[in-house]
Every structure is written in structure tokens, then in C-alpha cells.
């Protein structure tokens, strides 16, 4: 059922078996897992059923590190949480995403993929994922388009699924179910402002709640789960400092540290030898009812042997004439950077264009004809040049010239000429202790200290981008696909102007069996505490190569299982 926290009288103490702080993907998943059981559950959600500016402003906070939007922008503070603007891209973490890397401290999860694998099918259903098939070979067989014909094993193809837009918001999808629940009560407009413990500081006794209307109350429970997002989870633990001056679970100064994102920027460009090479596999496609998008990644073997974390490379085609239409996209940023050498006064204008010409020079027959056609079929541009006609006239001649190929929708099959392929690299950041969420002296409307974000990256991140693109460049060259430019210079100290995060906040209450390396243990229990758990991507020690939502939901199901069997 739903209740309005603004109607709870001041100084009231609500009682429950389980108190969940936050109704986003993790909180709603936990609440649903107990719905219909004898366990009395109270969910405290800061917002209402719809966006409200005053509530959202409680998230405000500055960014003092790498460029990042205001802290209220990537998150949403109402029922459903950040799933209300979720992009819907899903893929489970790879096996290797759980493994430690030689030479990179603080990597490695205390659990393996097998520990969470049994929860993935249910997590996929909860998230609205259409198919449980993730094997790229299986999808390739069913796909209309083929991956790039890369020669080599260092770079692999993967497939992500995109959840249909109408089922992405957990708030929209699961509100009716929770409204009907007899044992779960969701208090809307109820903001947790602190966590109270017993005198020893080992057991949480209650959480303090407040509303923007002014009433204040508390919730007592046997177990508490903080599931308010990676920034807010850290904030709640840090401000709860009555027994522990550094905050709960923070004996080793780890809460809020190791903040991680999926940094994304256009790290490279390919000029294709064949301007009609198909990159359809990497664009959004519906295959057997599932919305798919292919992408490239570093193979497990390279990651483990060279001590790199995961990296995703999105293939973003730029067709001729498209630049003028995309003035604000990363494509233009990368186009500008193509000329970076010229700005430095060293390099040659249009160097990339000349590289492309040289790369295609030794290829003769292929330059004039469409690869794979049963007979040599010229490109429309080539025929148009020979005939002295327009491209349109040439296309109209195609059916006469190429017979059956034309009847299959020749022009549609071939597509427009590619000018270049942008390579958007998305990194699994190396854990960085100095990348952190920290309390400020500023306070919000409820008198809670606001937080600042000091997002940082490290040289390991730079090295993995250059190495991955170098390996891809070699495979692109060996395969005759074209030539690749690495936009991130070896000696560059800063990061590209188009650097941004994916609103994937992780790491601030990282998971480890060792209390000196993690805030929570493998079950999500805060080290040193008896009944305080954390759910959500803040427990990820590393952010993985995939997307966080599916795993955080699977981990929430795993936590529910643990609470059910071992705690409640």
C-alpha cells in the first residue's frame, strides 16, 4: 500500500521488520520480493509519484573534480528513482568483470558471476528484458546484419538489449502491485535524514525521517537496507555520525570513496576503405522481438593477460554530409579533434582523408564494387561518374544492371556512403580512492549536509583506451576495413572535451570481504554492523563492462534471499 509521509504525525515511531530506504530499482525489487510474505516492510521514498522540483533539489550538490553535471541531473528523486529516465540498456556482467587484475589495486569482487547467475533470469524479467539470450554468436545467426569482419581475437563483439521505453520505469510498472500489497507500505515524501544505532554503534535501531512539510518521525525495524543510489547511500552513512564520528561503516575511511562512472568519449575514428561497409550490427535493431545493439569490447584474454579492466567500444557511423546535421553531437567534437594536429601547427590539414585514400589505394577491384554481390556490381557513385549522370539516375539503372540484387532493395541494402566511423570508448574505471563523494558545509532544506562529487580518473584508464584502440586498429588494418586514428594522445595529460559519464554511479560503499577494502561484505551487510545493509550499484567494487541496472537488480534479489533465510 501507499501512504503519504506528510500525514504521519511528528514524533511518531513506525514499526516494521524491514525498512528500505529508497524506491528505485533496488528498493522496489526488494520490496516486491517480500510482498505477500509475513514480513512487515516499510519503504521510505523521498519523492512522490511524479517529479517535484523542491524534492529534486535535495539532490543538489557541486562537482569539484572532472567535469560533471549538477548532482541532481543524473538522478531522479521520486517513486521509481532513476529508472524514470533510464536508457534501458542491459547486459549482464562478464565473468571477468568479477575478477581481480594484476597490478590494479582494489580490483576483484568477493563473489563470482556464478554467485549471482541464478538471479539473472528473474532480474531480466523485472527489468523488462525481452530475451535471456546473451551469446553473441546466437544473435549473429539471427541478425540481419553481420559484425565487422575483424581479423583477430583481441577485440570481441557483444550484444546489449534495450528495454522498450514503456516498461523502463520501475515506478510505472510496479506501482499497482505495491499498492495492492498488504504487508508492504511505501511512504512517499519521506526523507531519511539519519540512521540511529544502539550505544555500541553496532545495531541500527531506527532511521529518522522528515518531510518538506515539516513533520519528523522515525522507523524502527529489525533490518535496514539503504537503497538510495550510490551518492545518497554514501551521504546517509556519512551523516550518521553520532556513534562513529566518521560515519557508519567508515572505520577505514572508505565510505564515499572509489566513486566510479563509465567514462565515455570518442576515443578513435576509422576511415573505411569501403564507404559502404555495413555497420548495421552496431545500430539499434529489432531481432526476434528483442531490441539489440552490438558493440565491441576487449577480449577476456587481453584483459586478464595485460591487466586491464573492461572496455566497451561503440561503433557510431557518420555518413557523408551528416556533420552539418549533428552540430552538437560527439561526432563533431571528434571531427574537430581530427584537426587537432593542424591546430598545433605540426600536422597536415585533412591528414585523415589522405590516410583513407592511401589505405584504399592498393585495393583495386573492391574499390568499385559492392562486396559480396554475386556479380561485380558498381557503387552508384561509380556508375554515376562513368555515365556522367546523377547518383539518382545511376540508382534507377541498377535494376537493369544487377538483376536480382536490385529486387532485394539494392539501395537499402547498400546504404549511404560512410565518411568515417566514430569509436565511442566507455571505460570500466580503475578503482581510485581519491575519486569520491564528500560532505560539504552547505545544507539542504532538511538541514542535511549536501555532498560534493570529486570525480577522478587515472592513468590506467588512459592506457586501456590507447591499448584497446591500438589492438582494434591492427585488426581493422589487417582485415582491410580501413585505418584507425587514436584521438587520445600518448602524452595527453587531460581528458577529451566530450568526456562524460553514463549516470552509472558505483563504488561508494564497495563490497569486499576485507573491512579494510570494502564498506559492505559479500551479502551487502555493512562491516561492523549487525543489521544494516546496502543495495544498489554503490556496492560494486568495479563498474564492469556492461550496464549496472541488471546486476544491481540481481543483487537485490540475492540480498532478499539472504534477508529471508538468515536475518528476518
Amino acid at each position, binding site marked *: 500500500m501507499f501512504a503519504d509521509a506528510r500525514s504521519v504525525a511528528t514524533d511518531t515511531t513506525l514499526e516494521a521488520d524491514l525498512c528500505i530506504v529508497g524506491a528505485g530499482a533496488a528498493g522496489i525489487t526488494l520490496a516486491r520480493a517480500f510482498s505477500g510474505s509475513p514480513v512487515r516492510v516499510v519503504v521510505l521514498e523521498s519523492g512522490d509519484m511524479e517529479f517535484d522540483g523542491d524534492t529534486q533539489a535535495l539532490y543538489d550538490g557541486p562537482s569539484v573534480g572532472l567535469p560533471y553535471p549538477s548532482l541532481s541531473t543524473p538522478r531522479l528523486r521520486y517513486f521509481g528513482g532513476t529508472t524514470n529516465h533510464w536508457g534501458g540498456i542491459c547486459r549482464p556482467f562478464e565473468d571477468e568483470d568479477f575478477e581481480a587484475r594484476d597490478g590494479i589495486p582494489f580490483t576483484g569482487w568477493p563473489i563470482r558471476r556464478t554467485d549471482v547467475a541464478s538471479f539473472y533470469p528473474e532480474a531480466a524479467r523485472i527489468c523488462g528484458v525481452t530475451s535471456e539470450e546473451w551469446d553473441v554468436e546466437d544473435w549473429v545467426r539471427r541478425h540481419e546484419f553481420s559484425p565487422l569482419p575483424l581479423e583477430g581475437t583481441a577485440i570481441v563483439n557483444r550484444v546489449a538489449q534495450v528495454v522498450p521505453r514503456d516498461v523502463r520505469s520501475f515506478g510505472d510498472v510496479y506501482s499497482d502491485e505495491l499498492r495492492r500489497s498488504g504487508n508492504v507500505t511505501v511512504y512517499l515524501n519521506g526523507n531519511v535524514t539519519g540512521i540511529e544505532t544502539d550505544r555500541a554503534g553496532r545495531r541500527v535501531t531506527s532511521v529518522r525521517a522528515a518531510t518538506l512539510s515539516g513533520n519528523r518521525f522515525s522507523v524502527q525495524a529489525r533490518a535496514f537496507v539503504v537503497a538510495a543510489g550510490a551518492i545518497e547511500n554514501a551521504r546517509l552513512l556519512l551523516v550518521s555520525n553520532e556513534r562513529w564520528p566518521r560515519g557508519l561503516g567508515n572505520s577505514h575511511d572508505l565510505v564515499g570513496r572509489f566513486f566510479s562512472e563509465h567514462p565515455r568519449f570518442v576515443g578513435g575514428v576509422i576511415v573505411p576503405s569501403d564507404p559502404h561497409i555495413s555497420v548495421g550490427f552496431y545500430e539499434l535493431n529489432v531481432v526476434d522481438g528483442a531490441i539489440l545493439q552490438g558493440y565491441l569490447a576487449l577480449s577476456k584474454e587481453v584483459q586478464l593477460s595485460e591487466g586491464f579492466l573492461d572496455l566497451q567500444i561503440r561503433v557510431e557511423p557518420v555518413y557523408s554530409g551528416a556533420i552539418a546535421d549533428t552540430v552538437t553531437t560527439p561526432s563533431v567534437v571528434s571531427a574537430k579533434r581530427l584537426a587537432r594536429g593542424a591546430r598545433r601547427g605540426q600536422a597536415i590539414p585533412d591528414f585523415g582523408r589522405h590516410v583513407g585514400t592511401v589505405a584504399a589505394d592498393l585495393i583495386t577491384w573492391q574499390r568499385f564494387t559492392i562486396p559480396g554481390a554475386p556479380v561485380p556490381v558498381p557503387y552508384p557513385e561509380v556508375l554515376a561518374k562513368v555515365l556522367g549522370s546523377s547518383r539518382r539516375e545511376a540508382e534507377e539503372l541498377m535494376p537493369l*544492371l544487377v538483376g536480382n540484387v536490385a529486387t532485394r532493395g539494392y539501395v537499402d541494402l547498400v546504404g549511404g556512403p560512410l565518411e568515417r566511423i566514430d569509436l565511442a570508448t566507455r571505460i570500466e574505471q580503475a578503482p581510485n580512492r581519491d575519486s569520491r563523494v564528500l560532505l560539504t558545509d552547505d545544507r539542504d532544506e532538511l538541514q542535511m549536509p549536501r555532498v560534493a562529487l570529486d570525480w577522478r580518473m587515472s592513468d590506467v584508464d588512459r592506457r586501456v583506451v590507447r591499448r584497446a584502440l591500438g589492438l582494434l*586498429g591492427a585488426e581493422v*588494418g589487417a582485415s582491410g576495413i580501413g585505418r584507425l586514428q587514436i584521438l587520445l594522445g600518448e602524452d595527453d595529460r587531460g581528458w577529451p572535451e566530450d568526456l562524460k559519464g553514463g549516470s552509472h554511479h558505483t563504488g561508494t560503499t564497495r563490497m569486499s570481504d576485507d573491512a579494510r577494502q570494502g564498506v559492505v561484505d559479500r551479502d551487502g551487510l555493512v562491516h561492523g554492523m549487525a543489521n544494516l545493509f546496502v543495495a544498489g550499484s554503490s556496492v560494486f567494487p568495479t563498474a564492469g563492462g556492461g550496464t549496472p541496472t541488471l546486476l544491481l537488480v540481481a543483487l537485490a534479489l540475492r540480498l532478499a534471499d539472504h534477508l529471508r533465510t538468515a536475518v528476518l
Partner: protein
Amino acid sequence: MAQPMVNRRQLLLGAGAFGAAVALRLLPWSDAPLSGQGAVARRLPRLLGHPDSARVVGRAYLRLVPAEARPELLAKLIVEQLPEGEHTAAAVADGELRERLLDGVREDFRDGKTVELDGWLLSRTEARLCALVVLA
């Protein structure tokens, strides 16, 4: 019904011209094999159809590796990467030599024999070919 914009005669002419263009491209430009590094150094640059682009890339390569700024040395370095080396360069027709150079370029990428010019990853062989065009 829309009238065809190009009549049958134009189509045949066009198709013929296209075939001729492709055939010309495939035919060896010079079938007179030469011997000696100097001769090879003169022959190799002619295999590239876009010397202007090659010069741009070649100049960048020579700035990076000025020690290779001698035609005979570049020719030697290119040829010794090819199967049967100098014999290939001297004995085969242009079309086949072009194919072998292309194989050599791809082999460079497989073997990590690459060079980075303004961030662009190029094969040593193609970069040296371009440098030869500069020095030709």
C-alpha cells in the same frame, strides 16, 4: 509512369565504360620488371594511384623516421618484407606486385609492424611506400 532518365544506348555505353575503367585499373601499368634497389625504388611509387595523398602521409613518416629518407633503403625495407623479397619485386607484373604489397600491409598489422602518425595507425610498408613517393 516515369520515363527512364538514361536510354538503353547510354546504359550500354555506361556499362562498357565501367567495365573498361575496372579493367584498366586491374591491368598492370608496367609489365617491364626491373632489377636492383634503385630500379625497385623507382617502380614502387608508380603503383600508387593517388600520389598526392601518398606524399602527405610520406612526409609525416619521414619527419618521424628521418633515418629512412633514402629511396634505396626504403625500397630494401619494403621489399624484404615481401615473400621472396627482391625476386618478387623484380619478377612479377604490377598488378600482382600491388596484391603482394597489400598482403604485406595486412601482415604488418598482424605482426604489429605499425607506425602511429598523428594518431593514425599505419603499416610500416604503406608508410614507407608513401615515403618513397615523396623521394621519387
